[in-house]
Structure formats: C-alpha cells, structure tokens
C-alpha cells in the first residue's frame, strides 16, 4: 500500500516508528519541540515527551558533541542541525570526535548516532544558507554519507541510519520538504551503499543524487524526445557508494555525465569519474564529464542566483555534446 505524503511527513513517520520501537532513540536540536523548521518533527514532543525530544540552545558544537556523549553511554541520538551550513560550527565535534572515536579508541566506542542536515539550494537563502557540501564528508574516514532524493528513500534511510552503529550524515533536500510523493506504508530500512536506476537507457549514463535527480530526469525526458536514451542512476549514498552499479551501466553506454548541485571543483563528481577510469579504463569509458555549480558563493539576487541553479536545459546540452 502506498500513501501520498511530503518528504517531511515521510521522515516524521519513519522517525516516529523508530522511537516507538526503541526507547533509547531520542532527538535533540533547535526548535524540534515546535516541529522543526520544516515540520519534520510535528507532534513528536506531545507523543514522546521532554526527555526524548529536546530543544537545544543555539550551540551547534555542543548539539553535536553532546550527541556523541549520549551515544557513548548507550543511547541513540538523532542530532538535528537545522540546515547543513550550520554543521560548520560543529566540525571539530563531527570530524575530530565522532568520526574518529571508534578507531582511535581501538573499537571501545561506537558513535551510534544520526546527524540530520537539510541542505541545498532554496532560492533566496544566499551564501550561508544554501550550501551543498556533502562531498566534504566523503573525505572523512568513519562517516557514512547518505543523500536521499525521494521521500520514500528519505524515510528508509532515516530508519537505517538510526539502526546503524556507525555515525550517519543524512543530507535531506530542504527545497523538497513540502513536496508530495508516493511513500510505501511499510518503510523498510534502506541500508547505505545501493544506488537506484531511476531510468533505464543505452546511450549515456547520468550519475546523480539528492536535489540534482529531478533536473537530471527532466533532461533525460528532453533527450528521449530526440531519440537519445539516458540511464539515470541515483547514487543514494555517497559513502559507501555503489560504484559497481555505475560500472555496470557504463559497460553498456560508455558515456558518463555526473550531475551534482554542489560546487564542481573538488566535488564528488571528480571521484566518480576517476574511479570509473580506474575500474573500466578509457576503452570502455569513452567519455566522461561533470556538471556542478561554479566556484562562487551562492548569491542572493535572483538574476545572480540563477548562475548556480541546475537547469535541465544545461544538463541536456551537455548530454547532446556527449553523444555527438
């Protein structure tokens, strides 16, 4: 059975089910008792009470670090960072403490926690509230990095993230929190590391994730009308990522386009291309390109911001160049 619901509602349903199942799961973050900025926590406080739904001060470092401390004594915190950009004041706690504690302490500790990070472009939000920086954390050993593109995936990934004993960063497309999609009534945990082929095709492989999926699918639609068949792979997780699924597709198409919302320079797209060259060689992988944002802070004014926004037309143009 399927129900139509928003991304926010899907995540709330998944979280509620987990909190019912496991009394050690709890939530901390700013304004969560009021339902959170995007309504992802509506009704949770009334249902689970003051000790399990905790409103925090605006103190990101301690929101993150306290989450770790609570995990070390046997609870499973869900740490709400409000928006991904606000993870920056908590970087030491995330990168130096959470990511490394299991390893440094020889396995004595498990940072069994989830960090929720609404991310990406939301027009008008400007430089400090619009960043897409999930790739930074792929570079940090010890962190699982999940990037759901659909409401159903968000729900499944949140469940898996809560159950995993490794620290999981869940980047949630904030522009889509109100978007209604079909969500199965039963949410099974969606373990990290499996990509989803969103559209089958033979001529070119698009690899993408999170907010960039929609414009990629729209571009694929445009090209279908021109008899060019695109395979669209939604990675779902950036670490660990499903390189095997991408390689399988490229053995068919030989052409790769990575589409990401974040800054192109140093983005995960480069990792995908380099990795596929490693795996397949340049005989099988005939051509590979990437689309991402220019290396500028996100501007405010709409005429400037449009330089950053991913457009299906831009993606389609590059796809045509790839198959020409």
């Amino acid at each position: 059975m399927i129900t139509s619901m928003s991304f926010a509602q899907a995540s709330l349903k998944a979280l509620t089910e987990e909190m019912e199942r496991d009394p050690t799961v709890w939530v901390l973050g700013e304004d969560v008792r009021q339902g959170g900025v995007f309504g992802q926590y509506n009704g949770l406080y009334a249902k689970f009470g003051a000790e399990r739904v905790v409103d925090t001060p605006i103190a990101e470092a301690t929101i993150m670090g306290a989450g770790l401390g609570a995990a070390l004594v046997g609870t499973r915190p869900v740490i709400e960072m409000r928006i991904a950009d606000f993870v920056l004041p908590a970087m030491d706690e995330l990168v130096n403490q959470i990511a490394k504690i299991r390893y440094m302490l020889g396995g004595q500790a498990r940072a069994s926690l989830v960090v929720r990070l609404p991310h990406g472009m939301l027009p008008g939000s400007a430089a400090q509230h619009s960043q897409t920086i999930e790739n930074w954390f792929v570079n940090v050993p010890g962190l699982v990095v999940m990037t759901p593109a659909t409401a159903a995936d968000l729900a499944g990934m949140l469940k898996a993230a809560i159950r995993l004993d490794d620290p999981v960063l869940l980047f949630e497309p904030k522009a889509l929190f109100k978007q209604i999609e079909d969500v199965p009534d039963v949410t099974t945990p969606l373990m990290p590391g499996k990509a989803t082929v969103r559209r089958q095709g033979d001529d070119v492989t698009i690899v993408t994730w999170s907010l960039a999926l929609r414009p990629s699918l729209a571009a694929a639609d445009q090209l279908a009308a021109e008899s060019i068949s695109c395979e669209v792979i939604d990675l779902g997780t950036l670490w660990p990522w499903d390189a095997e699924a991408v390689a399988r597709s490229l053995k068919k198409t030989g052409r790769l386009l990575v589409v990401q919302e974040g800054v192109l320079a140093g983005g995960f797209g480069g990792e995908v291309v380099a990795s596929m060259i490693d795996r397949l060689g340049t005989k099988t992988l005939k051509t590979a390109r990437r689309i991402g944002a220019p290396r500028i802070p996100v501007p405010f004014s709409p005429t400037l911001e449009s330089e950053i926004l991913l457009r299906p037309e831009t993606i389609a143009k590059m796809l045509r160049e790839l198959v020409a």
Partner: protein
Amino acid sequence: MRLLGLYQSMLRIRLFEELALEAHRNGEFGGYLHASSGQEAVPVGVCANLRKDDRLTSTHRGHGHGLAKGADIHAMMAELYGRETGACMGKGGSMHIADFSVGMLGANGIVAGGLPIAVGAAQGLKLLGSDAVVACFFGDGATNRGPFFEALNWASLYGLRVLFVCEDNGMSAFTYTNATTAGQGVLKRAESLGVPGETVDGNDLIAVDDTARRLIDEVRKTASPRILHARTYRWYGHTSTDAAPYRPKGEAEKARLNDPLPRLAKRLVEEGVNQAMLDQIIFDTRATLNDARDQARSASFPQSADAFNDVQDCGAEARIVS
C-alpha cells in the same frame, strides 16, 4: 588505609609519567607525550569519590585520569608503545588513551573537546534512568574556548550530573593563561553560567578528596552540575619535547617544593604510617611500573591489516593492493 591507597594511586601516576618520559626520550616510541607530573592529586582526589559506573572525560594530558579511574596500567603503557596489547590496540596512542570498562571515555587531542561529550554522556545517563555522575576534566586553557561556555550552560540548563574539574596549572601550552584571559577567573565564569563551585589547592590531596566528595555528593543528589577549580602546577613543558624556556628560571624548582606526594606522605606519617610501609609501597609500585614497561617493550605491534578495521562497518574501503 584509604589515604595510603590514594598515596599509592598518585605514586602510580608519578612513576608512570617518569618511565614514559624516559622511554620517549630514548626513542622507544614516538608521538607527543603530555605528562601530568605534579598534578597527580587532582585526578586521584576526584576519582576516589567516583563509583565504577560514573564516567570521566579527559584531556590531552590524560594518563593520570586514566590511571586514577582504574584503567589497566599494562594496557596503558602498551598503548603508548603502540602495541596491539594497548588499551586502544595501538590505534590511539597517548592522546587518545581510554578504558570504557572503567568508565574512562577517552583522552582528547582537542583542548575542551571533552566538555560537550561529558554533558552529552550525562544527558544520556539521565535518559536511561541512571544517577551516574560524569567527571569532566579540562585545563585552564580550555576555559577560553566556545565549548566550555556552551557545555556549562547546557549542564546547568538540563540539570545534568556533571562535575566539571578544572586543572588550573596556569599554562595554555607555551603561554601563561593569564596573559590571554580576561575577566575574573574560571569560577566566576562558571557561576555566571549557573554552575557553582569551589577553588581548592590542587596539590593538597586531602583537600581535593574532601571537596570532591562533597561536590560529587551534591551533583548526584541534586542532579545539577558543580565545578571543582584545582590550582596545581605542570612540572614539565607542554609536551615531552618542550623544555619550557618561557618559564622564568627557578619557577619550576620552586613549584616542586609543593609536590603533592611528600605533602601527603607527611600527613600519613603523622597519622601513624611508618616510613618502612611507605618505602614498601614505593618499591612495589616501581616494580609494577617496570613490569608494565617491560611487557610493553616485548609486546607485538598490531598487524598492518588492523589499520583497516574499526573504521565503519559498511563500505569501509578495501585495502589498496598494488
């Protein structure tokens, strides 16, 4: 006799640090060593009043915290030597020493890094219905970092069982803390954040013990935080390779006159403990330490494949084979 046990506990730390420093000087292991020589009375006096299920967070200068909480001395020494028998299987070294079996949640290479972790641990314990206390150690240098202010506010706000222990040795690495610190001191800062406390002579084991007992009792009963501000002195430089040239001549020598060990020994003798007993304790403790060092020296190093475990369970990168 209890105080005799505490004397031995301090001695254990003193000798551990001396042996570790010597071994490091001789190149027996690498990395940075932050010795807590001279500061022994603080962790010993505090930990004497903690239960086994109480937790402790530490600093980069954490050997004394670990030993005082009851961490295995052999495992600790082996960790410094980077051996597979080390407390952290050789993965952490001196700065990340830990023993979760006695509630020692880890030394920390980031100044003030332990504060958010400590308050979170206390918050988790509260959720689990436990009245366990978390002793959160940090130095005077840490009181200038953001997480110090955040964590004290947090513990006070949520009513958490945290004893904040400030080991005030007056130094922030190579610089005197008072040269980089405004305001009226750590106790006033703590009070302004809702955390009452006391200053104590950190080299007077009995004073630390008495004050810690009282404060821990209050923390446990009232479920609210306290701060123990212990004035002490760091005998050596910031690290083992820092000769502390920034210290005026004679300062360290003068401070050693205030050594917490002979101060306690004097009290013990006054209470009827004879010197022969003390000598036996020194002899026995030295033997234990020598044994720990010898065992560490001859223990195996971890296998290179072990570099790849305990990163994460899913999708940990396979070893790169050429």
